[in-house]
Every structure is written in structure tokens, then in C-alpha cells.
């Protein structure tokens, strides 16, 4: 047995080590030692996050089954940072008496889905991609239905799992036609043997629409709002950022390494989907009263912006996509951090509950305001720069009409993001939510995400680094 194949899998092995250590600790530690479970989990994962930066290998192993390069490593690091912020936010919710027994499961399931996303990102064969996709989506279903005694959580879990299986069935049905026409499942072999025959085009459409379910582009978005609303807040954050980012990256890899010959067909299809996604996501977000549901529709329209640059096909577009995902993780983490801080203490999640929040919780209101500015794209925050790079990448390709329509949508989105700010700062309210005390981990996570929102935009080395690694993705093919 040749063990040298495993040398490229360092990020996966490191994550697996964290996973095993935490599982053993959860199983065998005494009740007294379990008090330190959370700090230990965070420290181990932080070590993994830092170590991942240094695994800059490129190449492929297991006969091309597993492919890695600078782009893959970068996106894995971005996801790691996001998951670390989510872990910090989760402590307050997990320390509640009804969920403290299940604390171990939350970490293990989250790490398991992250493992699936790693495999999905660096797959070089559709078999590994499918296994990664399922490893990423099954534990999420368990996480969504995590609150056993809260009916909405189970309802959201059912909606998620049925849609996940349905979409993966469509995916592999399409894949079977691609296999029938080409006789291989390796990305590199498929690139050369794919032609524009009707069978392959049909297979591709099935495959891509299955994947669009995961990213929740518009005709396939109906599960997203219900699932996001019913899931525990930290899981919603995980779903809307980490899971979406990984799926977009995997879709990008498939489109550019497997189906570059059919680019004319899928590009037209996706321009239409992107426009629909941005517009419908925005219009539905306006009429939402529940904060989590509101952010669900906002994340649907943000997915449209992420895809907008992904389909330019240039290295600049790749860089812009990854940068957008990076910024989006921080902005959403700040918004959900505030929501979960208030929900943990008071159980209120409606927008009207936020009226006059500024009087009692000035710091939380400020954090929420910066997050909303960043999601809407107001200049000093990073959200402005990420939108700018996305539009620049699309303009380079001459997509003037689409960029214009997307810009119009940005104006609409500003309206509803500012509705939240208005509720907190302007709308008078005699009985605002009482002052909320958050624990130190949640505070740390808010500080990290706010620092991220400000610093990533103003200091250009982040974008430069990400955009240079974006070239890696084209080299795969």
C-alpha cells in the first residue's frame, strides 16, 4: 500500500484528528472535565485553522481522485475561519440546560459536514464529489432538527432533508447520462470527451439543477426560508455562509474543469437564474417580519451576487467570488451574532422587537448596523469592496445589462437593510428589549467579525492574496 498518496490530504487528516480527539474526549471525560469541553474544542479547531495556512501543496493523488491547489487551500482556510466564529457564537446557546447534554454532538456534526465540504471542494472525480456532497448535507439535516422539543426545528429538518435527497437524486440521475455518454467519471478525462450532444446537455442540466438546490438559486430556493427560520440560529448561520460558499466553489470547479466546452449553453442559463435570484430574493426580503427569515431571503439574493462573478470565467472573477464569500461570512456572522445574543436571552426574533434597541443595547445595535451596512454595500465596510470587485469582473466581460440590473437591485436591498437600522435607532418604543448580557465568547466572535468587516475592506493585501490564488483553479483542467 502506497501511503504517499495521503501526504496531500493534510487538511483533511488534520480535521479528522480534531474530530477524533473531540469524540474521544466527549465519550470518556468525566463530568468535571466536560466543563472544559468548549474551550478545548475551540482551541483544537483554532490550531487546525492556523495549521491549514501552511499546507500549501498542489497536485493530485489517488489517480486523480483528489485534487488540491492554492485555490482549494484558500477556500478551505476561509471556511475554517467561518466555522471558528460559529463555534464561538454557539457556546451561549449550547450552555442552556436543555442543550448542554447535546453539546458534543453539535461540534462533531459540524466538523463532519466540514469534512464533507473539504472532499467536495478538492474532488477530481464525481464519485468523491457525490460522497462529499452527501457527507456535507446529511449531518446538517440533523443539526437543523437539533432542538428536539421545538416543533419548528423538526419541521425545518424535514423540509431540508427531503429537498436535499430530492436534489441529490436529480444530480446523480443527470450524472448517469454524462457517464453513459463519456464512460468515465474523472474530471480530467471528461473534459476531453465531452461534446455538445443532446444526451450530455440533458445530463448537465439535471446535474446543475440538482446543485442549484444546494446554493438555493431562485427556482430552487423554496426550502431555504423555512429551513433558515426553523433551524437554531447558529445552524442557520452555518447553512447560509459555510455550506453555500463550499457549494458555489464546487460548482465553479465542475463548470470550468468538466463542462468548459458547453460554456455557451450554461452561461445563458445561469445569467437568467442569477437575475431571478437577486431580484426575487430582494423583493421577498422586504415583506419579512421575522429576522431570521429576513436574513434567509437576503442570503438568497447574496448568493446571486456570488454567482455573478463566478460565471465570468476569468481569473479576476474567481478572485472576486472567493473574496465575496470571505466578506459575506464576516458580515453574516456579525448579524447572526446579534440575533442569537438577543434570542438566547429574550427569545424575540421579530423585527418589531428591535424597535428602540439603541437605548438599551447600544453596542449590539452598532454591531448590527455595521453588519447591515456591509451586507448592503455601503463604502467604508468590506461589503462595498466585494460588490465592487464582483461588478468589475462582470463588466470586463461586457455584461452591461446584467450589471445594471444587479446595481438596481443593490438599491432595493439597501432599503430593507436600512429598515433594520431604522427600527433600532429611529422608531420610538417605550418598552425596548432589556439590556442583554452576552458571554465572553459571543463578544469575541462579534469583535472578530466586526474587525473583519472593517479591516478586510480597507487593507488591500487580503484581496491581493485571494485574487492571486484564484488563478489556481484554471490550472486544474
Amino acid at each position: 500500500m502506497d501511503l504517499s498518496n495521503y501526504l496531500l490530504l493534510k487538511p483533511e487528516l488534520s480535521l479528522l484528528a480534531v474530530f477524533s480527539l473531540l469524540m474521544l474526549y466527549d465519550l470518556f471525560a468525566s463530568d468535571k472535565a466536560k466543563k472544559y469541553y468548549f474551550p478545548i474544542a475551540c482551541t483544537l479547531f483554532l490550531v487546525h485553522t492556523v495549521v491549514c495556512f501552511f499546507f500549501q501543496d498542489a497536485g493530485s493523488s489517488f489517480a486523480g481522485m483528489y485534487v488540491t491547489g492554492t485555490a482549494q487551500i484558500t477556500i478551505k482556510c476561509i471556511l475554517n475561519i467561518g466555522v471558528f466564529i460559529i463555534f464561538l457564537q454557539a457556546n451561549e446557546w449550547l450552555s442552556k440546560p436543555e442543550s448542554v447534554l447535546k453539546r458534543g454532538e453539535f461540534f462533531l456534526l459540524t466538523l463532519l459536514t466540514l469534512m464533507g465540504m473539504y472532499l467536495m471542494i478538492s474532488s477530481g472525480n464525481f464519485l468523491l464529489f457525490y460522497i462529499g456532497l452527501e457527507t456535507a448535507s446529511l449531518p446538517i439535516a440533523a443539526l437543523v432538527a437539533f432542538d428536539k422539543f421545538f416543533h419548528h426545528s423538526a419541521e425545518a429538518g424535514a423540509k431540508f432533508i427531503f429537498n436535499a435527497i430530492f436534489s441529490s437524486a436529480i444530480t446523480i440521475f443527470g450524472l448517469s447520462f454524462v457517464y453513459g455518454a463519456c464512460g468515465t467519471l474523472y474530471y480530467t478525462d471528461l473534459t476531453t470527451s465531452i461534446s455538445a450532444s443532446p444526451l450530455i446537455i440533458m445530463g448537465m442540466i439535471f446535474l446543475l439543477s440538482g446543485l442549484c438546490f444546494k446554493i438555493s438559486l431562485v427556482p430552487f430556493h423554496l426550502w431555504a426560508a423555512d429551513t433558515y427560520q426553523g433551524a437554531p440560529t447558529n445552524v442557520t448561520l452555518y447553512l447560509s455562509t459555510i455550506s453555500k460558499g463550499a457549494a458555489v466553489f464546487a460548482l465553479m470547479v465542475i463548470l470550468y474543469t468538466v463542462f468548459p466546452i458547453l460554456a455557451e449553453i450554461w452561461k445563458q442559463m445561469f445569467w437568467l437564474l442569477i437575475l431571478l435570484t437577486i431580484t426575487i430574493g430582494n423583493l421577498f426580503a422586504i415583506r419579512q417580519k421575522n429576522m431570521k427569515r429576513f436574513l434567509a431571503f437576503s442570503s438568497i439574493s447574496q448568493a446571486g451576487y456570488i454567482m455573478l462573478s463566478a460565471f465570468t470565467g476569468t481569473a479576476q472573477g474567481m478572485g472576486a467570488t472567493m473574496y465575496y464569500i470571505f466578506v459575506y461570512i464576516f458580515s453574516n456572522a456579525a448579524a447572526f451574532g446579534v440575533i442569537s445574543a438577543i434570542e438566547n436571552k429574550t427569545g424575540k426574533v421579530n423585527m418589531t422587537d428591535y424597535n428602540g434597541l439603541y437605548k438599551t443595547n447600544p453596542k449590539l445595535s452598532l454591531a448590527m448596523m455595521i453588519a447591515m451596512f456591509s451586507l448592503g454595500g455601503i463604502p467604508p465596510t468590506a461589503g462595498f469592496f466585494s460588490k465592487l470587485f464582483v461588478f468589475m469582473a462582470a463588466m470586463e466581460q461586457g455584461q452591461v445589462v446584467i450589471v445594471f440590473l444587479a446595481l438596481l437591485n443593490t438599491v432595493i436591498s439597501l432599503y430593507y437593510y436600512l429598515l433594520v437600522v431604522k427600527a433600532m435607532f429611529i422608531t420610538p418604543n417605550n418598552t425596548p428589549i432589556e439590556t442583554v448580557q452576552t458571554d465572553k465568547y459571543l463578544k469575541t466572535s462579534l469583535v472578530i467579525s466586526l474587525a473583519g468587516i472593517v479591516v478586510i475592506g480597507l487593507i488591500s493585501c487580503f484581496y491581493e492574496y485571494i485574487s492571486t490564488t484564484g488563478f489556481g483553479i484554471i490550472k486544474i483542467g
Partner: protein
Amino acid sequence: MGELITSFLSGGPIPMFAYLIVSTLMFFIGVYGFLSRKNMLMVLISIELMLNAADINFAVFNRYLYPEQHEGLFFALFAIGIAAAETAVAIAIIINIYRNVKSIYIDENITEMKN
């Protein structure tokens, strides 16, 4: 169709498209069941039909078009295993719903969250 029947009656090999007809029918029956059934277990069965249709496709394409390799068969094996895991998770969630509302029908109990 005539070719299929004569080949079947004379004991000859079954042509590939006969299998593909079966798998396509299974897939779309599954889609119909997923969209129309009210019992969650029936929805789950419909999704299983769709997954199995894809597995049949993989096995048939492999056997008839590329008999020298095993890639499609392996994919079908993995897909069967994953489908079993999916079913297990889905049934666990259905049981959870049953405990909460004493019903597994897709009715007003399971559509509380709306726009």
C-alpha cells in the same frame, strides 16, 4: 417495441433501451410521488425510487457500453449506501415530528412557517 418483444420471446439478450425505459419511468414516477403524496413515508419512498432509477442507469450503462471497467457499478454501490444513510436520517426526523404533533401527514401541522 416490436424488436424488444421478438427478442424477449426468442430468449435473446434484452436491449439496453428496455432498461432505460424502466429507469426513466421510475424516476418520473418518483418525481410525481414526491410532489403529490401527503404521507411523509410515501414521499420518502418516492425519493428512493428516483435514487434507484439513477443506480439502474449507472449499472446498465456500465454493463452494456463499457464492460471492461467497473466505475459505474462502484458508483451505484456507493449511491445505495448513501441512500440508506439518507433514509435513516429522514426517518429519524419523521419520528421527531410524530412525537411533536402525532401525525406524519403533510398538512397544517407541518406547514406552520409561511411567508
